[in-house]
């Protein structure tokens, strides 16, 4: 397998969905009706509170203050309805704790502090340091960690500077294993928004995917629609998640044993002939090998491992088959759990293949993306090292840059000459996003320049040499949203207000810095308005039109949302088939068929730390949002009543936690005694326990799960950081912090 083919696939998938300019729709009448009903002062945006990127309208009140954000009815990501975080997005703008002005680290008598600076000074300083460091180590020693819209602007700047090391936690800490698992099986990835055809499914299988708490908007909307239509939901989760409570079957699995269940399901489907024989015969490669391979993985075998009743395994397999091909074994999204995650997601992909759901209505549709040309700029300089050189020999099947790979490679070793010296960190709070904080801090210690672009004072900004305050997404333009969907579409973000304080949009910051670095050739546009208008005119729209409609849909080029009956399809894999037996995995020395491996178990007196989402918060980025903290202002620790009894714990009481490596939590967390969690695990919502005192609402509220994740199981296939092999015990003291008991 070659990397070039992977890159081709990514780009290829996009150009396959290129749009015809002539056939573009005019904006719908419904939108104009709505405009008349609601107040006329509205600005289009797409949401940045998470990466579902719903398009909506920002409304102001009589005083001209931003009052509310409402979904755009035309938007396929949200269908006119935002999730609580998007609705509460006003708080991202109105939070008075926001970063207000650029800050430069100064050292006086050995004591570090920040001094306020104006933009010119801060950017001059960065440009000068970048030039000095690049002169010593080459421009390749600069890396960009980014999550969110700013990445496009800073990425442009970094690539022009001479480095391709642009990485995001949304790969190796998030969806990486599923993309690689599906890429190696079907030759294509899942994308965001997921190509799952939930609204038409008859059976939805959620494996640790906690839709309903995970508020990715389109999925929750479609799941609700599926419930209405009577679809069966099967949820596999050690915790009685919200989704589990809506399910016909809840499989309360012992954590870390999902692979056994998946293999047993395959066994049942194949042994009973409950699979799509025509589909498999027509499209699949390696069925006989798979059949042979899963023979031994009987439901009885899985029972001993997963604690799931063999009859339930059979019954659920039958449900899936009866619904097939309108069945979805959901690939999940945050899937970096135990280090064999790509293999687990391969198993998920294989199950979907057996049931023939890929390319089928109610299974996985074929998404299409609107094609928007880039503003022409000179080719980027070719770097001496590619980012993959940083972790040379490892993570061979990674199809994006591995953030932890870059982080590790920043720490100098005797045999490495490509250590990173400059980090740009934009819109990602690495001390919450990357596991093993000590490793992250060691890397940061080795840097010569750390620039952090953020909207809030967080853990990362405290470590920065220069802090650059970005304005919120409601105060800026960004690049067009053009995610793949059932219908190709684009959405625009237009500032609804002037940037508050002395904050600036990422595009401006990147362009200014590029100019100071002598890279203006790569930023030839005057401003975002010019850039966007140019792009939009290329596809038969304009900035003016988009300001009026916010979202524009384009017709699909082919009527290929699903495979046609008996259609011949060339899959983008080595064999051109759906690879039940993966030749790519085999070529790189990994198991071509997924196998079960046992994972670490909690030692005596310890409990597995599992974590997830609360519907009203996004990671650590909303923990200080005034609107959202009003609803939930700290995380709590879910403890089974049996465990609570042993430890004498009561709901409302605060405890600290210590993990297997003796790492003690900085803050305390409130106990929530609940039957909804297994007795061998405890659960908390990720994103709390901020230790930056400048966060008036979030500081000291709850525990940051990341600091307890020191045992990281790296997936050898693509570098994903498995984070669920950490075990904690309670440190009970009389001390009580937080808001006090509340039910």
């Amino acid at each position: 397998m070659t990397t070039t083919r992977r890159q081709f696939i990514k780009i290829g998938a996009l150009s396959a969905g290129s749009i015809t300019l002539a056939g573009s729709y005019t904006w719908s009448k419904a939108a104009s009706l709505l405009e008349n009903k609601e107040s006329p002062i509205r600005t289009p945006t797409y949401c940045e509170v998470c990466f579902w990127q719903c398009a909506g309208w920002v409304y102001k009140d009589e005083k001209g203050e931003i009052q509310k954000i409402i979904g755009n009815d035309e938007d396929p990501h949200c269908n006119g309805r935002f999730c609580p975080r998007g609705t509460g997005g006003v708080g991202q703008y109105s939070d008075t704790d926001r970063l207000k002005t650029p800050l430069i680290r100064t050292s006086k008598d050995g004591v570090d502090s920040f001094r306020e600076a104006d933009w010119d000074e801060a950017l001059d300083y960065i440009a000068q340091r970048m030039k000095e460091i690049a002169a010593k180590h080459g421009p390749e020693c600069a890396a960009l960690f980014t999550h969110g819209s700013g990445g496009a602007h800073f990425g442009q700047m970094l690539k022009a500077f001479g480095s391709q090391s642009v990485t995001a936690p949304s790969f190796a800490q998030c969806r990486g294993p599923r993309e690689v698992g599906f890429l190696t099986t079907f030759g294509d990835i899942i994308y965001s928004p997921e190509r799952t055809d939930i609204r038409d499914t008859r059976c939805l299988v959620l494996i640790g995917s906690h839709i309903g708490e995970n508020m990715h908007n389109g999925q929750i909307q479609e799941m609700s629609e599926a419930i209405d239509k009577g679809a069966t939901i099967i949820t596999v989760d050690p915790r009685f998640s919200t989704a589990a409570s809506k399910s016909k079957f809840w499989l309360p699995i012992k954590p870390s044993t999902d692979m056994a269940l998946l293999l047993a399901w395959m066994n049942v489907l194949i042994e009973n002939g409950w699979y799509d024989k025509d589909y498999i015969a027509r499209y699949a490669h390696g069925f006989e090998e798979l059949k042979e391979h899963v023979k031994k993985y009987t439901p009885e075998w899985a029972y001993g491992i997963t604690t799931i009743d063999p009859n339930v395994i059979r019954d659920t397999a039958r449900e899936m088959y009866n619904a097939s091909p309108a069945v979805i074994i959901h690939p999940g999204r945050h899937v970096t759990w135990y280090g064999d995650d790509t293999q687990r997601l391969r198993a998920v992909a294989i199950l979907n293949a057996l049931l023939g759901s890929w390319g089928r209505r109610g299974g996985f549709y074929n998404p299409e993306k609107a094609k928007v040309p880039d503003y022409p700029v000179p080719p980027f300089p070719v770097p001496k090292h590619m980012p993959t050189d940083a972790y040379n020999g490892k993570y061979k099947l990674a199809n994006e840059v591995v953030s932890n790979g870059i982080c590790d490679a920043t720490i100098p070793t005797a045999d490495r000459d490509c250590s990173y010296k400059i980090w740009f960190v934009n819109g990602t709070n690495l001390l919450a996003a990357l596991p093993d904080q000590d490793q992250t801090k060691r890397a940061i210690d080795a840097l010569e320049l750390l620039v952090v672009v953020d909207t809030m004072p967080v853990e990362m900004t405290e470590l920065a040499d220069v802090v650059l305050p970005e304005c919120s997404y409601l105060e800026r333009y960004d690049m067009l949203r053009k995610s793949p969907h059932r219908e190709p579409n684009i959405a625009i973000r237009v500032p609804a207000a002037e940037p508050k304080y002395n904050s600036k949009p990422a595009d401006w910051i990147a362009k200014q810095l590029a100019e100071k670095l002598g890279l203006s050739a790569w930023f030839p546009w005057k401003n975002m308005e010019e850039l966007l208008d140019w792009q939009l005119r290329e596809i038969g729209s304009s900035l003016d039109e988009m300001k009026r409609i916010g979202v524009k849909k384009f017709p699909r080029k082919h009527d290929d949302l699903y495979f046609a009956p008996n259609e011949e399809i060339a899959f983008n894999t080595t064999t051109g088939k759906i690879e039940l037996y993966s030749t790519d995995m085999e070529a790189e020395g990994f198991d071509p068929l997924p196998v079960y491996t046992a994972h670490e178990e909690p030692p005596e007196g310890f409990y597995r730390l599992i974590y997830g989402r609360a519907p009203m918060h996004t990671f650590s980025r909303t923990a200080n949002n005034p609107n959202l903290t009003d609803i939930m202002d700290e995380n709590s620790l879910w403890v089974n009543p049996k465990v609570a009894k042993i430890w004498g714990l009561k709901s409302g009481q605060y405890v600290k936690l210590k993990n297997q490596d003796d790492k003690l939590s900085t803050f305390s967390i409130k106990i929530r005694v609940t039957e909804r969690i297994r007795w061998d695990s405890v659960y908390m919502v990720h994103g709390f326990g901020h230790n930056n005192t400048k966060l008036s609402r979030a500081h000291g509220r709850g525990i940051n799960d990341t600091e307890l994740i020191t045992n990281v199981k790296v997936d050898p296939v693509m570098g994903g950081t498995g984070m669920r092999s950490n075990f904690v015990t309670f440190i009970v003291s009389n001390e009580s912090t937080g808001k006090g008991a509340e039910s």
Partner: protein
Amino acid sequence: MRYAMAVDTKKCVGCSDCVVACQTENKVPIGFCRDWVVEVTDGTYPQLEIEIRSERCNHCDNSPCVRCCPTGASHYADGGVVLVTHDMCIGCGACIASCPYDARYPHPDGYVDKCTFCLENRVQKGLNPACVSVCPTKCMYFGDLDDPNSSVSVILKKRKFKTLIPEAGTMPQLYFLI
């Protein structure tokens, strides 16, 4: 005309979007709310059930809050919606104490505030209440019970439902589909 709302506990995921949307739409001050989410867990692991309800003022047909109000600030408006006239309210708190559902709160500006079914700012303009129109699971239904074709009448005919504390005799007009 009788306005009413139904919430499907089988679809509600307890996300609180309805709460946030109400806050931004109706400028409910931070720290207060006109609607809220209740989650009740039953059973022991792994035999469990949860009921999730988005609650608000029940716009009771026989409402103690209207009865106990000394000034007439709390009153029945169009379609039986219970409203508070701000400049008639003296903030005595009697209605807060009288509501078995804890649906009212003292607004920092002095008067007592609560869910209005978005009557004046949305419903009378032909829009759904803010909470109903934002709900990602579309689990809320609003409309006129006297109109057999309204979404709320239709769903109440189709599904089993309950009201909260019927024994309190308040005749609530917020229905929970079960």
